[in-house]
């Protein structure tokens, strides 16, 4: 049985909800819970009680590796000046109405 952490709080879990069949799970928020089963139940009560979800995922927050805010210039700015990476520069073949 997981016990409370040093902060006196239960571990944090990230919650992902799937809004409809076939749609991707999206990050909804987080909950505290002592273990995975209770995390799932807390996620259900906090993030799906108004019919927002057909499926839930919970992941221990400590399992997520996040990029550092200080690296955001290095990581993301170079993409801003390369408009040719957007698909509108490609010619659409005849006969295709939408894509």
């Amino acid at each position, binding site marked *: *049985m997981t*016990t409370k952490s040093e902060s006196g709080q*239960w571990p944090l879990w990230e919650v992902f909800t799937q809004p409809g069949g076939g749609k991707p799970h999206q990050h909804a928020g987080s*909950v*505290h*819970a*002592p*273990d995975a*089963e*209770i995390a799932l*139940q*807390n996620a*259900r*009560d*906090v993030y799906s*009680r108004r019919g927002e979800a057909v499926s839930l995922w919970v992941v221990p927050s400590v399992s997520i590796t996040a990029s550092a805010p200080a690296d955001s210039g290095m990581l993301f700015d170079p993409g801003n000046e390369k408009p040719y990476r957007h698909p509108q520069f490609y010619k659409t073949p005849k006969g295709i109405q939408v894509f």
Partner: protein
Amino acid sequence: MSQALFEYLLRLGDDRLVLGHRNAEWCGHGPILEEDIAISNLALDLTGEAQLFLELAGKVEGLGRDADQLAYWRDETQFRNLQLLELPKGDFAFTMVRQFLFSAWSHFLLEGLIQSKQEDLKGIAAKAQKENRYHLRHASEWVVRLGDGTEESHRRAQAALDQAWPWTGEFFLADDVDRVVAAEGLGVDPSGLRPPWEALVTDVIRRATLTVPSPPMRMVGGRKGRHTEYLGHMLAEMQVVARSHPGAKW
């Protein structure tokens, strides 16, 4: 016939109204934010079910009383809930153990009620069964975690079980009301629910490393309007706003 069905529906409604109110007393006092929301959700589910059962009771009675009139304008001796459900909410262990014992019983009761020949009752039971399955899961998981948790949580869970257990005898007492509605295919005779209930409850209690108590059964009589000293106080609080402002609407 309709008198028996009316009484039977009052029992179904009052059980959920009273337990729903007891759970609602946790709102703002839960041990952690997430559980505060979870218990409040239980309370809202139970109160919603109570509203449906009482509304139907009023319809069956045929005297023009609706769910609000039945909930707020009856006195203690006119309530038909099980005595276990009116006991003070106690600590978190007692609230969860009581919810677990009731939801397990309610599970088998609702399974029978979704076969009812009374179409409205059948529909309400189907809705309640979905909610109850979650209540049972949530409460069961907590009973296991409290029992098989720390020394203190184990002690509190066993104390809660010892306190609640004697009151569960009332779950399975059948009287003429039960027998009449069961014979008509409208309701369930609760005396048949003990074996499956005991099997389910015993399994969870063992997983929780708790001990099944074996004390004598308490005095009963909730179904006849005999209640503990606690119900009157609870009703006074629950009914005061409605009685101070008769007919008020949101």
